[in-house]
């Protein structure tokens, strides 16, 4: 029981705070872009899609390196934020949120885009014919009919952010209470050979991840059945 009592849960709280904020911000940014991508016949669509998918294939160190490079005091962006607004962007929580938004972007936009693309076009057109604007159509007809895709996007983005390691380590370092998230904490326990705590942290991560994913798949199955999708 002594090991359990001495456990510090702050890295977990920090992970969830980071993941929650990232998911919220990304949903706001990715939804309009996904709606545009699902509707457009613009020739630049593949370019936008390729750029938004880059974080899936790039090593986290590449993303981490460039974000660090762009946000540090030596770059114009970093200097502007620090001198004009007084906000430091690296090695703190703000920097982590920005980095996570880049890193998890594809996991938010892809389910949303494929959900919106799978909508029956005639259903959307029926709403336009009924005199409703594009925004009203998206809110009242589009989104309610892609609930499984929305849930998948939210949860996968959340889970992916909780599970991120490389980018966080590069941009945030490992400052307790500020940037030391669960994945970094586990890495450090292994490094100092504290396997017991590493085991406990890891098992907690596995169990929580499994429960979250189980919840998503159960909900999606129920929804598809209700709306007659599959």
């Amino acid at each position, binding site marked *: 029981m002594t090991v359990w009592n001495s456990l510090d849960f702050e890295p977990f709280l920090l992970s969830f705070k980071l993941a929650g904020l990232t998911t919220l911000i990304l949903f706001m940014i990715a939804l309009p872009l996904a709606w545009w991508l699902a509707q457009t016949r613009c020739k630049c669509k593949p370019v936008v899609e390729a750029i938004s998918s880059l974080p899936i294939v790039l090593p986290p160190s590449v993303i981490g390196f460039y974000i660090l490079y762009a946000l540090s005091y030596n770059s114009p962006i970093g200097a502007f934020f620090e001198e004009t607004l007084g906000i430091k962007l690296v090695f703190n929580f703000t920097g982590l949120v920005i980095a996570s938004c880049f890193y998890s972007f594809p996991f938010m936009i892809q389910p949303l885009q494929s959900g919106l693309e799978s909508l*029956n076009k005639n*259903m959307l*057109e029926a*709403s*336009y*014919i*009924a005199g409703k*604007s594009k925004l009203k159509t998206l809110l009242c007809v589009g989104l309610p*009919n892609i609930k499984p895709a929305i849930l998948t996007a939210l949860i996968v983005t959340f889970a992916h952010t909780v599970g991120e390691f490389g980018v966080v380590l590069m941009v945030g370092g490992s400052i307790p209470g500020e940037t030391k998230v669960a994945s970094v904490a586990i890495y450090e326990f292994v490094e100092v050979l504290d396997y017991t705590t590493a085991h406990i942290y890891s098992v907690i991560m596995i169990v929580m991840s499994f429960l979250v994913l189980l919840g998503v798949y159960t909900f999606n199955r129920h929804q598809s059945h209700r709306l*007659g999708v599959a």
Partner: protein
Amino acid sequence: MLEVDIYKKLQGSAGEMALDINLSVKEHEFIALSGESGSGKTSLLRILAGLEEAEGSIRFADEIWLDEKRSFPTQKRGIGFVFQDYALFANMSVEQNLLYVNRDKALARHLLKLTHLDALKERLPASLSGGQKQRVSLCRALMNRPKLLLMDEPLSALDPQMRRQLQNDILNLHKEFGTTTIMVSHDPSEIYRLASRVFVLEQGKIIKEGTSKELFLKAQGSQKFSLRGELLDIIKADVIYIGVVSIGQQIVEVVLDEKEAKVLQVGQSVQVNTKAFTPSLS
């Protein structure tokens, strides 16, 4: 009065095709658009609805929907549209589908009662049959009290019995709401029953126009009976051949001589003509 004079290049299954349509429809008329698939019927309806762009002009009553300068947006045309695949809002109940268009509860109740759907108003579309879904779609299209009602093969996915019931519904609603109605259909009996005038399209152009009686009852030559069908099979029986032909929902046998049997091919579209006999209806 609807006046249409439009031009648009289409990418059809058989390469590029020019849709070039000039027609006018009187108020309260029921028009059918007929013709082979890929002849431009659906594109014409979509252009009328403002869902696709085209060059030319469209005028309806005293409004200009399309001219060189601008295209009136779909949202403001105030039309009703019935899709072949129903296109109901899957997340809303039957009643909500109607009220989403217009919050007129009395009208929704009235329409649902006319089409015998009042018992199903709480149900979601996924739990309805094809005929019920198309009824909901028809009611939804009328919730804005449209002056112009467009229907794209509304009954083609339904069985013959359901078709007849819905044809009656369509006709009653057309009369009650005083709409000008344009319907795409392939079924001559349906067109005959509903439409007062027919336009036949081929390769993006109107090739025939007239009343359904003029277009469908005309037999070429002096035949008394002339029916179109598909040759399903040729069977040799002793010295003669028998052709099995599908006409409408029926299959009939026609005696062929050897010469005919050699020329005709199974799967081909054929005309069954006969002259000297007096059929009786029972």
